[in-house]
């Protein structure tokens, strides 16, 4: 299936990234790249620095050393707003949704950046505001259809089971029509069936919209199944990088991670 999908040029490159919190070295001299349309996994044991890496890419943390090259533009750190405007969307390890709002409204918030109408227009519901709302709703409905959330469209998020909440988060990220999607443990805490569904949706997203996906995941089965290339971190250092097969046979990786099981 991957044969037909074209993996393009490098669109994101991190070089020699080091991140410290006081005396704690979260990341040391990390370099890797992400190609267009690929599914890139970051794996590693607990505390290896996976989430920190994701936070560096999307501008939550500013690394002390190193550069990030996104679409050819070299910078010291990413700004979260810039990241969003540049087409990077993400989901969180601990679900971060508006629990009192419906699924539909939550996903609509993902369209925030696409709204150009003014406060006045929105308050009085005329001109661009109306047009945009209809357009945005259509896009959101397409995502609801895509992620099969029709039956919970009007349900407040607080009442949903965990697996569905995760899916709503993915939906909100997709609503921004990202070119790059950062998924922080999208399958953590799910049962087998929910994991399978999520895998399907991640692959479909990549396939249908050509979205580049960077994901952190604990479940080795999942990672090996769906990723094109894998970066392995341990204690903030990169110890492996390559296709799932290469990584699986890398002695350092076996020692640090797979061997532990």
């Amino acid at each position, binding site marked *: *299936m991957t*044969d*037909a*999908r074209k993996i393009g040029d490098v669109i994101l490159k991190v070089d020699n990234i080091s991140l410290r919190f006081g005396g704690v070295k979260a990341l040391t001299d990390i370099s890797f790249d992400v190609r267009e349309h690929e599914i890139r996994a970051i794996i590693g044991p607990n505390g290896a620095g996976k989430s920190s890496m994701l936070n560096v890419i999307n501008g939550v943390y500013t690394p002390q050393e190193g550069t990030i090259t996104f679409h050819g533009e070299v910078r010291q750190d990413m700004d979260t707003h810039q990241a969003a405007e540049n087409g990077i969307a993400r989901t969180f390890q601990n679900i971060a949704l508006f629990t009192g709002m419906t699924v539909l409204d939550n996903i609509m918030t993902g369209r925030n950046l696409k709204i150009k109408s003014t406060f006045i227009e929105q308050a009085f519901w005329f001109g661009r505001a109306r047009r945009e709302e209809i357009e945005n*709703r*259509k896009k959101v*409905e*397409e995502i*609801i*259809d*895509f992620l*099969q959330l*029709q*039956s919970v*469209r009007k349900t407040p998020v607080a009442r949903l089971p965990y697996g569905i909440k995760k899916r709503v988060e993915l939906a909100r990220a997709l609503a921004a029509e990202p070119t790059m999607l950062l998924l922080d443990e999208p399958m953590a805490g799910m049962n087998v069936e929910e994991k*399978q569904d999520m895998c*399907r949706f991640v*692959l*479909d997203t990549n*396939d*249908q919209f050509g979205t580049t996906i960077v994901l952190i995941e604990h479940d080795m089965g999942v990672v090996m199944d769906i990723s094109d290339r894998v970066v392995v971190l341990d204690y903030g250092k990169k110890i492996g990088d390559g296709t799932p097969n290469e990584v699986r046979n890398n002695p350092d990786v076996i020692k640090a991670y797979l061997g532990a099981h």
Partner: protein
Amino acid sequence: MSATSASVTADTFPRLLRQHASQRPDAPALREKYLGIWQTWSWRETAAEVRAMALGLAALGFKRGDNLAIIGDNRPQLYMAFAAAQSLGGVAVPMYQDAVAVEMTFVLENAAIRFAIVEDQEQVDKLLEARDTLPQIEHIIFADPRGLRNYNAPGLMSLEALRAKGDAFDAANPGFFDAEVARGQANDVSVMLYTSGTTGKPKGVCQTHHAFITAAQGGVQFDHLVGTDNVLSYLPMAWVGDHLFSYAQFLVAGFTVNCPESAETVMTDLREIGPTYYFAPPRVFESVLTNVTIRMEDASRLKRWLYDGFMAVAKRCGADMLDGRPVGTRDKLLYALGNVLVYGPLKNTLGMSRIRVAYTAGAAIGPDLFRFYRSIGINLKQLYGSTETCAYVCLQPDGQIKFDSVGTAAPGVEVKLADNGEVMVRGAMVLKEYYKRPDATAESIDANGYFHTGDAGVFDSEGHLRIIDRAKDVGHLSTGAMFAPNYIENKLKFFSHIKEAVCFGHDKDNVTAFINIDLTAVGNWAERRNLVYSGYIDLAGKDEVYALIKECVESVNAELATEGELSHSQIARFLILHKELDPDDDEMTRTRKVRRGFVAEKYGVLLDGLYGGKTVQHIDTKVKFEDGRSGSIAANLKLSDAKRFPAVTKAAA
């Protein structure tokens, strides 16, 4: 109404479609909720899409007499596929969409399927898997392209591409389509429905245009259905009931068929559409009532008081008012008030405000359940029929409703009983034949043209038919007393706490039963008692639950004690199964009928335990998951005794 004139002149489904398209082109034919909005196809649009689809098939080499497999949830495009195949003189073969690939293989092979129109990737995957052993499957056409962009299997094509091919073919061969539709004969086979296979391999039931149109016309006239009616189609398209209601009657009466957004949104969609004509098997009505009951138990005191009070009024006089029988003025006033405060809002919540006629069939419906719906003013009726009879044998006429009968013979149908009580029927709606099974055809249709239904029944004094059991299931205890397992199982299932029951007793000294508890109802019951449980197995094994089920079993026994010969078949011992019976494990058919013989064999240890007088029995069971993997469940089951009652003779009612 133009609809009735259409039914007089057109004698095949494609011609009926053409007639609607020319007489009422802009009336809505099909609707589907997509992207949160109900999208409508008018009769003209429907006819045009069917034409393009049919010609696309013709361009691929689909010929008169070919079979077209149709697999998927209820979708407008798939209903159109029926008409497309029939336009070319082909036969539509709908298949159950939740069957796994292996189960599909039999039908695909038996029906020599070369062409299939399917809903989505899930079905495409199954067909591609089946193609490994059945290379005859040449063309797979899918309606929803999601996830299929990178598939490059030969013969795989989107419906859009098929229609484009059809348009091109139309331009090159003008007049071809009309000529093909004109060549169709009323006695051509229009559809082949596979029986669920309660016994042995499924059989393909060949039904002609004439058979289904006759059955549909009978129903349409009987219940005065018109072009402005609305139905919601959510039952499997491979089931005869859906084919009659959502296809045959749809084209005869010309009403609107609405397809839900997804299987999970049916209740919401039902509310939005507010169908005027509704069909559901008893279990749907049952789960709706269970939900209502559970939610009422959690409601505030005032609401509960109102609900209980007015439901008592409804119980007293609601059904009589619906049947047009005289009711006291006080009750009339109370009922009117109840309608404003309780029944009306309740029906609205359930999406049943506009229902003129609702039918249920397929299994016995509990008297309480039946009375509940009728008492709040929903004209729920029962019908009797089977795949072989276009689901059209008996109907309950308005005003003459009895919960334990299935009504009188439908217009144009002759019904009589054989000496052993088996129901036999004759009429236009009887099947033409079983596909490639002359032996089975000869066995079930006798020299006089009567079809032997295999059901045992009795007529009451007013000519209403009462179905007791499958004729072959009626057995005898070792004492010689009659034993009708289904009859007892249904009595058990009428309790909301019991989801499924399987009774044994043929050639045994007494009757025993396997019970499946209803997880929703018993779970809620347990929660209200602060009974902690982790899941089905745990809950099913609780002593408290055993006591609850024992009560149900004993009240069935008390009832049976009053029923003459059946008093001997009171349940002596029972157990609660550690897993729910499941079609995936072959314990039930896809239409959720228990395969008693298979269950007896699979759980032989348990059965021996019951008859051997044991109190605990260990069992290890293999289960199959939906994705084809299998695992196992082990459990120690408790076997319980139940009290039996001495036979009571009841004065004839």
